[in-house]
């Protein structure tokens, strides 16, 4: 398994969303406040997480977490070793 870091995770998110300026997102950021949150953005996030980490996020996962750190922790807990 390749090493997983929150910094790399944040970079992946920033690369996917045009609204996000590089370097603005922090682990404590509430991502719903950082850019317009809608169903298409949810799919973009799901696609990125599946491609990069082979983890599936469900609709209920998406409403559960608020911060980038919470999202990262959930994904990390599901990464296959």
């Amino acid at each position, binding site marked *: 398994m390749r090493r997983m870091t929150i910094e790399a995770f944040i970079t992946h998110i920033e690369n996917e969303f045009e609204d996000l300026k590089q370097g603005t997102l922090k682990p404590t950021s509430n991502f719903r406040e950082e850019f*317009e949150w809608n*169903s298409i*953005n949810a799919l973009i996030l*799901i696609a990125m997480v599946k*491609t990069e980490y082979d983890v*599936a996020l469900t609709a209920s996962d998406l409403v559960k977490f608020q911060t980038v750190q919470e999202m990262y922790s959930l994904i990390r807990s599901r990464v296959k070793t």
Partner: protein
Amino acid sequence: MALFTIPHIRISGMAACVPRNRKHISDYRWVSKKERDLFKTTVGIEVRRVISNGTTTSDLCQFAARRLLADLNWAKDDIGLLVFVSQTRDYLIPATSGILQDKLGLPKSTISIDINQGCSGFVYGLSIIGSLMNSTGIRKGLLLVGDISSRNTSYRDKSTYPLFGDAGTATAIELSEHASDMHFNLEGDGSGYDAIIIPDGGLRKGLSKTSFNYKRYGKGIHRNNFHVALDGVKVFNFSLREVVPNLKNLLNFTNRTIESVDYIVFHQANKLINETLRKMLKVDPSKIPYSIQKYGNTSSASIPLTMVSELNQELTSKKINLLLSAFGIGLSWGSVLLETDQIICPNVLEY
């Protein structure tokens, strides 16, 4: 999984027909410009073709079939089988395939069958017409596949209205001792039946006055129970979970590598899904044709429409290996590995 091989069957020709009427995403004022732009870049749809009132799937398929039969120079009396695949048929009863048999002037000896499948319909239909021709010895068959899903959407539902376009297709199938094998992997999971559904209007929940009451299901999502409801996240996750293993199992079954395939034609549901699948399969973008930008999600018609629209020159001029991958409503999904060799394929027709 259902992995199997059908021998002695070839595609001799294909035609696709779309309505003239265009609906541009830029004109969809129910959502903001920002959302429209995001929809175009992410889902990949810029314009859809939408029927006028009174036109049905069978009209589009009939138009495509007439042109195809003329170009192939096939005698109508030689056609022993007509398979019509659609979820937007002319009537609740009777079946539409019989109506098409009559309108196309095919003989009474033509076996006519309806199949109720959506996104996976072309691959399922191909397996059924191919199997039946092998078992009966019928030498020429027509596979008519299409949908007019735009009729089932609510304008005030941003999760469905801008997605669906209409199209009808015709594929000519021939029994031939010299044809190369077609290999299939068909799967399904009915527990996800409600991921894409029109709740009312069948016999489980018949139409009533309340069927037409609009409800709000979220921001920009207002519809009634006679409209199609689509659980985007559920369908998205299903596609990312099932499609790649389905294709890998088919390739293993046939001892083939993905590199040996010239083109992978995915169901055109959403560019983001297909691009994610492409990355998971590690396939070059040049092998993945798209027609979604021009026609939207045309349900069962999307694979043959993409072939006719995007691979026309390749289909008509040389031998090519294709991997077709269909997935969606049902939930139902499947793939087929096949070869075509200089088939008859007129450019996309307008109705």
